[in-house]
């Protein structure tokens, strides 16, 4: 991959990383209402996958969805305002971290229910196939969702009806607070094979690999609608949610994760392609400024009005 491409991907990953680090601080300061599930260490997956997508393609996400959302190109200011529960948020401050959506970008929503994005995205893929424009749907889910019944229903239907859906599993080894090896009697490659679905595995922390494989899978899917499974091995650095002390996890295991940090790996790849430390510093400065501007705008934005509690429950008032 060329240096300018690597730099663009690196920048996008850094936006997600810095955004989440900023949210981590805001959360610690009591400025983020509700739960916060960070995807630090998993940034390469959505950035790599989104390289293959346009606004016509749809994605849906899970509780750990900040990266999926930002990589789909949603407005950073609207994103920050939403997570801080402000009226200027993408969802007017009614969704928050677990329900960020931007339908204009094909981002059908993060989700608070494990596995719930699977049928929604399968249906979106059916709609896109009916509309016949070659668009595809992508669902991000974790290895914890492999134990949910709807996964099996959706793999079956997607294969049966040849739907243009990319099942992207971010396998970080943890189902909330439990190691997935103690939760699952099989593995995703075997499940994909059982349903006759094309399966690919990549190192989910190497953004160029995720991008190259996703591009190949999506290109094939646009031409001939059919599902594919992409399993990305990746690393969850933080707890299941902010405030989780991770005392169920070995400290050495967490410390070793920095070796596989996708941003560190991407910086190395840039250096090997001729990138300079100045170039990296320039990207980091630009990203920091962007994050700071979005944070300040969100902090200063008004809260939603309690007079609007009934707004948008229905499109129109019947009866």
């Amino acid at each position, binding site marked *: 991959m060329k240096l300018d491409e690597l730099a663009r991907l690196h920048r996008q990953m850094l936006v997600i990383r810095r955004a989440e680090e900023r949210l981590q601080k805001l959360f610690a300061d009591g400025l983020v209402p509700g739960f916060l599930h960070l995807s630090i260490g998993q940034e390469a997956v959505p950035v790599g996958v989104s390289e293959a997508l346009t606004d016509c393609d*749809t994605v*849906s996400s899970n509780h750990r969805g900040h990266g999926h959302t930002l990589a789909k190109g949603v407005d950073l200011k609207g994103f920050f305002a939403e997570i801080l529960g402000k009226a200027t*948020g*993408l*969802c*007017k*401050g*009614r*969704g928050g971290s677990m*329900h960020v*959506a*931007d*339908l*204009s970008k094909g981002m*059908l*929503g993060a*989700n*608070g*229910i494990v596995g*719930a994005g*699977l*049928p*929604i*995205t*399968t*249906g*979106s*893929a*059916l*709609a*896109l196939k*009916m*509309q016949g424009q070659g668009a595809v*749907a992508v669902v991000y889910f974790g290895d914890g969702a492999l134990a949910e*019944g*709807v996964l099996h*229903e*959706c793999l*079956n*239907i997607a294969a*049966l*009806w040849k739907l243009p859906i990319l099942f992207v599993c971010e396998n970080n080894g943890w189902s909330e607070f439990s190691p997935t090896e103690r939760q699952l009697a099989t593995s995703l490659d075997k499940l994909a094979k059982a349903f006759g679905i094309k399966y690919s595995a990549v190192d989910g922390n190497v953004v160029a690999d995720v991008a190259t494989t996703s591009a190949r899978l999506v290109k094939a899917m646009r031409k001939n609608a059919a599902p594919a499974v992409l399993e990305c091995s990746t690393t969850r650095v933080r707890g299941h949610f902010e405030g989780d002390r991770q005392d169920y996890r070995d400290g050495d295991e967490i410390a070793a994760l920095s070796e596989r940090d996708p941003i560190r790996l991407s910086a190395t790849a840039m250096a090997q392609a001729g990138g300079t430390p100045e170039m990296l510093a320039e990207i980091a400065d630009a990203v920091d400024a962007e994050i700071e501007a979005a944070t300040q705008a969100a902090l200063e934005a008004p809260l939603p009005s309690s007079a609007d509690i009934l*707004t*948008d*429950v*229905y*499109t*129109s008032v*019947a*009866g």
Partner: protein
Amino acid sequence: MPETRYIKAVNQALADAMEADPTVFLIGEDIGAAGGSFKATRNLLEKFGPERVYDSPISEAAITGMAVGAALTGMRPVVEIMFMDFTTLSMDMLVNQAAKARSMFGGQGSVPMVLRTPHGGGLNAGPQHSQCLEAWFAHVPGLRVVCPSNPADAYGLLRAAIDDPDPVIVVENKALYAMKGDLPDAPEDRERIEIGKGRIVRPGRDATVVSYGAAVAMAETAAETMAEEGIEVEVIDLRSIQPWDESLVLESLTRTHNLVVAHEAVEAFGVGAEIVARMADIGFDQLDGPILRVGAPFAPSPFGKTLEDAYRPDANQIVAALRRTLA
């Protein structure tokens, strides 16, 4: 005006909606070549093809969730869930996803999907194929619920549900599927029925019975019995449960001053409880007697004929409730 069975009116509504709007499509178990368990989709596969009529695997959660996703992607899906009891498997998709998407996404979009499903007993179908669970759905902000009591309403409410930008649960009553009624021959004469509006089926001055679905006919029979004694009972068909026509019920109560609410569903914690509570509040000054409910006892629906007959509410129970409130 030609006579049509309830199930045929459902079929006609689906066909007309699909004809009128290419984004309308059907998804459900055995709805293709088999035409559906109750034949609501008979001949629609032949007419519209497999790209509009999706005969699905037995995966209620997936097909309901697929309807949510397709609706968010510009389509108007109509899901059939073979028995209302099976909507238990669709609950996450209806309650956590369909109902909430518009509000939690700040009004960015809506979920214009319909879920059709039959409730009710009378077929000796037993505890897992007879339940009336509409109160569950009416309790969830973001969902609309309708329950037609006759063929013309089955047509009109389904067309309105498919047009509606929000998720609508259309509860059909399987004991009514063979019911005959009028439906105009010319497509342009077939009317939609506004969701949220009830109808006075039979006017009366002495007491009001509010009902929906199969209970409407029971209420009419009860009214006839009372009329023989010179007591004129007004019968209201709610047609729509969420939202329900509160002003129509209140207006009737201000004339009759006595109220009974009847439904086939279990009485406790049901739709009737909500109506009673509202009328005890905003209609308190109008009441001449206690507001009474008629519904099934607090037990699973039995399958044996004698037990099921005893379990299902009937006109006699409505008559008894009327006598009590009028006493």
